[in-house]
């Protein structure tokens, strides 16, 4: 009966394959993106992390002006996206990568991820943002500040001044009030540690964290939990019974609290402790083996054009880097960019990062 059996299997395969193909074709046609690899010179592909955001019509305008079709590929968080780009640098997924920040910049440059390109309009970008001035392998696109946010209502009720600086945070008045994130897995958590390292130096920051620990700093794993569960200043943190009126977040979080509230409050419920900020700058670069280098260059020019720079703030909650870009009222009113944030050279970050995170972990978490 062997013949019956194998014929039977063949029939089953035929049926199954048929079913599969029908389903695949039915669904394939309804899928919105094509599966081409973007090899045509008329398509330019931008690779980025999951938080990259823009308005549709702004990109449409670029497509109309330049004649290129733009394809955007997003995945994972900033760290993953950079690592994926490095892994695939010989056969890249696109032409331009957006979203490498100053904490990861050295890793990208040392691995030869980008080729030099001096973007048109770079002269209007503030010099403090240009961290690769000599070779122009990356172009600054936006900046943001990692800062301590405070719950206005709490400090008004207690009649205490909210903290203003790193030094304030270790004072007894602010005991058991601060929640921050794990520096080894969270980007704002790392930024805050780097901020203290910039402020107190290679030898002083650990002593500062010992004081902070003694003053009852709480560490949770991720930003979501810190902000939405522990922090009493966010609407949802309040609902969850959060009892920490200080959280490590971004300078742009207060405007977001206003924009994403229904109904909108008259003033932001949270404020920024201005002397606790660490500056993050995000860059874009032309990938070393880009198939469509010309298109990629045009796209980078566009990213520092007035149109795109003005579109960014309310999409990504970041600040433009091009001088003279008008910033939405929500930003100027509820959360202006930090005046004098801590900064650190990318090479120094790359050199010390792993060691610092290790010592921070054993110091604060053990």
């Amino acid at each position, binding site marked *: 009966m062997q013949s019956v059996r194998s014929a039977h*299997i063949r029939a089953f395969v035929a049926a199954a394959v048929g079913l599969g193909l029908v389903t695949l074709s039915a669904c394939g046609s309804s899928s919105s993106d094509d599966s081409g690899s973007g090899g045509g010179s008329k398509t330019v592909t931008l690779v980025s992390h999951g938080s990259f955001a823009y308005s549709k019509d702004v990109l449409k305008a670029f497509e109309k002006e330049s004649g290129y079709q733009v394809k955007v590929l997003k995945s994972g968080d900033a760290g993953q996206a950079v690592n994926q780009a490095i892994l695939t640098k010989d056969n890249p997924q696109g032409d331009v990568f957006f979203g490498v920040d100053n904490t990861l910049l050295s890793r990208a440059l040392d691995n030869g991820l980008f080729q030099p390109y001096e973007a048109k309009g770079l002269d209007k970008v503030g010099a403090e943002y240009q961290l690769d001035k000599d070779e122009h392998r990356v172009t600054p696109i936006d900046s943001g500040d990692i800062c301590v946010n405070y719950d206005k209502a709490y400090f008004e009720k207690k009649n205490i001044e909210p903290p203003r600086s790193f030094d304030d945070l270790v004072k007894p008045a602010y005991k058991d009030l601060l929640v921050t994130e794990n520096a080894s897995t969270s980007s704002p958590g790392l930024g805050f540690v780097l901020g203290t390292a910039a402020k107190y130096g290679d030898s002083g920051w650990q002593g500062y964290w010992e004081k902070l620990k003694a003053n009852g700093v709480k560490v949770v794993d991720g930003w979501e939990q810190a902000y939405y569960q522990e922090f009493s200043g966010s609407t949802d943190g309040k609902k969850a019974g959060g009892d920490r009126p200080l959280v490590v977040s971004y300078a742009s979080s207060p405007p977001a609290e206003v924009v994403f509230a229904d109904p909108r409050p008259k003033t932001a419920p949270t404020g920024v402790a201005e002397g606790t900020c660490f500056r993050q700058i995000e860059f874009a670069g032309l990938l070393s083996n880009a198939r469509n280098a010309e298109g990629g260059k045009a796209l980078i020019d566009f990213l520092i054009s007035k149109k795109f720079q003005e579109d960014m703030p309310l999409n990504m909650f970041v600040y433009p880097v091009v001088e003279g870009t008008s910033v939405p009222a929500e930003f100027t009113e509820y959360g202006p960019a930090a005046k004098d944030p801590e900064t650190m050279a990318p090479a120094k970050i790359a050199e010390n990062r792993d060691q610092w995170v290790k010592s921070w972990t054993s110091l604060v978490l053990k």
Partner: protein
Amino acid sequence: MALPVAFFGVFFAYPVAAIVVRGLKADGGWRFGRIGEVLADSGIRHVLWFTTWQALVSTALTLLIALPGAYVFARFDFRGKDILRAIVTVPFVLPTVVVGTAFLALVGRGGLFDDLWGVRLDTTVWAILLAHVFFNYAVVVRTVGGLWSQLDPRQEEAARMLGASPLAAWRRVTLPALAPAVAAAALMVFLFTFTSFGVVQILGGPTFATLEVEIYRQTSEIFDLGAAAVLTLVQFVAVGLILAVHAWTVRRRETALRLVDASLTARRPRGAGQWALLGGVLATVVLLILLPLGVLVERSFDTSSGSALGYYRALTGDDSGIFLVAPIEAVGNSLRYAAVATAIALLIGGLAAAALTRRAGRLVRGFDALLMLPLGVSAVTVGFGFLIALDEPPLDLRSSWILVPLAQALVGVPFVVRTMLPVLRAVDERLREAAAVLGASPWRVWREVDLPLVRRALLIAAGFAFAVSLGEFGATVFIARADNPTLPVAVARLLGRPGELNYGQAMALSTILMVVCAVALLVLERLRTDSTGSGDRGDRMGEF
């Protein structure tokens, strides 16, 4: 056999091997020295120890809490049993990003435990353990309960007649019959908790890391692919061992037990003791499973503006950029991806099950266990592996939408195989031969003989694969795609931004996801219990 092997080879073995090789090779030479280095690191050793310890304790706790539930679902009849069975399965198919958030409401600040006893468990190891019970409750209830409901109660009654005490009768008759199912369920729970990622990250706080969390850190934060490769191999060995033992228990279960129709063994509880047991199990389910899920629903309606549907309405509005489309479209994306993933999983899993039915032997049995491997390999490894392995024509799928359902199907296939295999093995070969002798073409034999017998099992397998695909988050988030996020990805993105509306929309989307999963599972329950009396064993769905 060829197609499942090829699928498995191309979309799982090859990418994973590629990323491991990339990590262990440098400047043209192998660096096996890294293995010793990494394993000698005290931090890594601690991670290995903690991973094993928490998996063992989680498994023990899950069995302790879920076995009474398995008994109640197997032996008692009560109103709402189907709905309840569907609901306890929902956590298992939900993405951890959603469940973690819900669970915080139970054990975190201002949660139920906090209100009742002032106990807060978040960032303690207890939160991890309880959440693991919450996730894996259904695995035990389905795997053990499925078999229990088909054991003939008369065997135990006969032992009682012959003078055995209730306990002795249970120990000598029921327990030996159940043991392989309990072992299989325990091993599966151990596998899922050993490779736990989201739960540990969200609930455990920064001091706890499992192997999976460490692999993620080494890959995406530290970018030490060598260490990640070593840890991947370690996890591979561990998972391989677990699956080998599991395959052995599966075979033990297929030994001849006298099984009866489940509808004959369940009856209404009698006596105070049985009612108390039922009450206890229901209370556990309400507290442990319904409550966290209920919190999500409650928060999705809890707006500041006073209109309960505010967040749901916001979902349909054009969000400011992060998605380019209204978040609600993630529902459509998810359904589309899940449909394709289900088709792929059915095709591959069905063929694999058919091949495993027809052939015996060590190789085939090994293949059965092999198909389960994707359940135990870290998503970040598979995701990065896809990137460097599938980057050349004809397989340049990196930016293709098909990669997402393919990754989801990898997780769905084991469920399909587990569901189809017992049913296919139960089809009497002589029926097919008789049909063939009477002149039916092979195609017609399949249509007239096999299809009616396995149709329900196919539907059930499809439903499970569908639900699992809907909730798949790990691999999906690593695959670069144009802007068409799935539900879990959309939830994660919304949760990553400040502002009440973002959080509220995340809760609303989670609720929608939960309802879709629950409906899919409920339809299955209906299929399961709508017995056609064909003697098929379709009610062994979702068992391992």
